């Protein structure tokens, strides 16, 4: 088991390295750098000015050198411009020249500096991740119990009318992407002209103060899309368990139906949905980006859109590292958890 986790960790690190390198490569293509130079410097720069702006700041160095700097295995870049200001990836405002460290990459714990927000990437990502954490927590609290209840109710009597109704509901929710359900929810519950006006159509105020009014719609929007999928998986697994021999034995012994469902079937039926729930995290990440844009909640997803839209290289790398870690960790947890829950599988 220990060896298995070690191997998986090795693959994880390799994947993260490859991924960040791809992001690094794409953001460092010349047209992207040109855009960066123009947004940071001056929109009307000529081509030579753009090149010299980029050269002065070390953006024109070979790709691997730049990637090494970001990782912290190559010495940081620094340069003094004509007007005496010092630039470079280790230079921070207010830190004297002799105090500036030689290496400042991921290995040294420095995530770089965001060009859009003019702040440390680590601080931004931490703060935004905290905001998204609340959203995710609320979504999980709504989605998982809801999906499991729907799935178990539908799967315990396969083919019944309750099953048909709940299955149709869950198919409908899987067919409704967040930007559609969000729009419909805002139209019904938040529109100032015809709607019910129960909730607010924006979640900006939820960043400081989460209330029932401003947080319900975003949470519901994300939860609904993932809910149908988990519910269908739970239903399939529950329906399979209900046809097993030991359930029939329990029935023949005269155990009541509710006891069969609660005591005999439920535990075995929940093994498969566990994996699915863990693998839903990466999907939630997508939902979070859409919903945070739609409801203007400035969390992690919103940061991703800002970083990508402005070619903020280091912030984008930070965001991708975090999302890759989330995706791969949930995969690892789902594999390990599956082994613990299902005694028939052993990793040798």
């Amino acid at each position, binding site marked *: 088991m220990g060896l298995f986790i070690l191997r998986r960790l090795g693959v994880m690190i*390799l994947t993260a390295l490859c*991924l960040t390198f791809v992001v690094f490569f794409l953001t460092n293509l010349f047209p992207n750098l040109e*855009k960066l130079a123009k947004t940071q410097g001056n929109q009307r720069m000529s081509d030579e000015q753009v090149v010299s702006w980029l050269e002065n700041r070390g953006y024109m160095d070979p790709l691997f050198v730049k990637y090494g700097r970001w990782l912290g295995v190559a010495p940081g870049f620094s340069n003094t411009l004509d007007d005496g200001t010092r630039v470079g990836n280790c230079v921070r405002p207010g830190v004297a020249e002799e105090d500036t460290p030689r290496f400042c990459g991921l290995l040294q714990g420095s995530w770089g500096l965001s060009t859009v927000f003019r702040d440390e990437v680590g601080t931004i990502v931490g703060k935004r991740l905290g905001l998204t954490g609340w959203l995710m927590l609320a979504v999980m609290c709504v989605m998982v119990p809801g999906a499991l209840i729907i799935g178990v109710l539908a799967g315990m009597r396969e083919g019944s009318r309750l099953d048909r109704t709940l299955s149709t509901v869950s*198919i409908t929710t899987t067919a409704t992407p967040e930007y559609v359900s969000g*729009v419909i929810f805002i139209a019904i519950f938040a529109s100032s002209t015809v709607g019910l006006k129960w909730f607010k159509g924006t979640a900006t105020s939820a960043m400081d103060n989460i209330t029932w009014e401003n947080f319900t719609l975003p949470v519901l929007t994300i939860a609904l899309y993932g809910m149908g999928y988990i519910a269908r998986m739970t239903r399939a697994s529950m329906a399979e368990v209900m046809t097993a021999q030991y359930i029939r034995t329990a029935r023949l012994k005269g155990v009541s139906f509710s006891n069969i469902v609660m005591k005999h079937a439920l535990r075995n039926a929940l093994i498969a949905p566990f994996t699915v729930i863990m693998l839903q995290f990466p999907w939630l990440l997508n939902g979070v980006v859409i919903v945070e844009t739609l409801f203007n909640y400035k969390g992690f997803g919103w940061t991703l859109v800002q970083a990508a839209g402005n070619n903020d290289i280091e912030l984008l790398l930070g965001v991708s590292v975090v999302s890759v870690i989330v995706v791969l960790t949930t995969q690892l947890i789902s594999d390990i958890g599956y082994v613990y829950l299902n005694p028939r599988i052993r990793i040798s």
Partner: protein
Amino acid sequence: MEPLTWTGAAGTVLNPLLIIIAVAFAVSVLASIVSSFVFGGGRIQYGPDGMAVATGGLPGLINKALTYSFYALVGIVLAYLLVGFFTGHRGGGIIGGVAGQFAPVWVALIVTFVLSILFKRNLGLYGKLFDSVIGMVGFGLVMFWVYTALFTGIFDMIATHDPLTQVSGMKNKVPGTVLNGAEEGDYAWYLLGGDNLARDVFSRMVEGSVTVIVIAPFATLFAFMVGITLGLPAGYYGGKLDTFLSFLANLILAFPVILLFYLLVTPEIVLTGIPSYMAAVMFIFPILFVGILLNSRYYTQPNFRTPLLIGVLGIMIWFYLSGVSAKGTAINVLPPFLDLFDISGGILVVFVSVVFVNSPTVFRIVRGLALDIKTRDYVAAAQTRGEGPWYIMLWEILPNARGPLIVDFCLRVGYTTILLGTLGFFGLGLPPESPDWGSTINEGRKLLSIYLHPALPPALALLSLVLGLNLLADGLREESLKD
């Protein structure tokens, strides 16, 4: 001229009826859910002669109420559509007008369904679809949009106005507003209102279906070609090849989709030519697939195989070169007189990125299926006969994996539709004035709390298409499991 009301003259009769029936249906649905808890599942009861008898008592009554109110509900919706079909906006208001505009689609749908049901026993899996209600509903929804795209894109029939024309004075007007300065021959109303650039919402929604119906199935098909061509050898051979390809697939899957879109689908990336190179790589896979498929089957008959391969591959390579090479992009190899068509940069980058996102998942599914099927006896038999590995993969394993693959294809077209909408929602790829559903939703959402009508029609259209595809997949799965 008067602005249209929602239901027009027919509404005075039909609206009260609709309310009564809807309430009756809602009550009976609730009652039947409660009764299924109280009385247990609907078990069939048998009379003394062994025939099934109707359930009596309260559960039976609820069942009957549910059935009849459901039929009544379907009937009243049909009545609205029929009034619209025959009288258009004069008799049926906005709903009638919309139903009237869709008249060619209704006719095509009815013809398709009547023909399919008549000949369903001779049509294989497609015919079996018409045995399941869910499958039929799904197929109906999908074909509705397919026909809409067909009639709009080719015959220019359904849309009432040009989707890009702005008419002064029509900005954000509510549904049913009379067209400002309508001339002879113009459709005199904006059926579903105007958006914030004073364009007709209904026409934009209808035109938007063309983009989706053209891109989504093709992109999915290409993703399947890539996934199958790489997944079969990965599953069949295993070993280092499998490890490498699986690592690559997991690498792409570990990217959040939206980050990938933001990295790939920007004007700056189009400038570098990366989408053209990616297209050049990905469009090879269908040629590879067809080439290997035919060669592995007919290589024992060289006289037949060689002309066949030359003909088929020649045409495919010509199409490949026409698709890949375009003037002013990174790849421009074909002289203009041979170039059949150009794919504009915006569409190409959207297409390529959607294929790129979808293929790793298809790869994993195909690999899993190949791993499972290669242990079967008929594969061992083929190996004993001395068949080549590609023959076994493409002519023994692939046909036996078709059931799950067809079902996944339907689901994946739906998912691709969602992805296209996501791209539009973030304003990536397609030009901003493009009428595709994602972009229209994105535009409409900005004024959503004041004006609902620009955002809701494309949202509901997308929802119904994806729902149709999911229901179709469900019906296909159910029917293919029955054998």
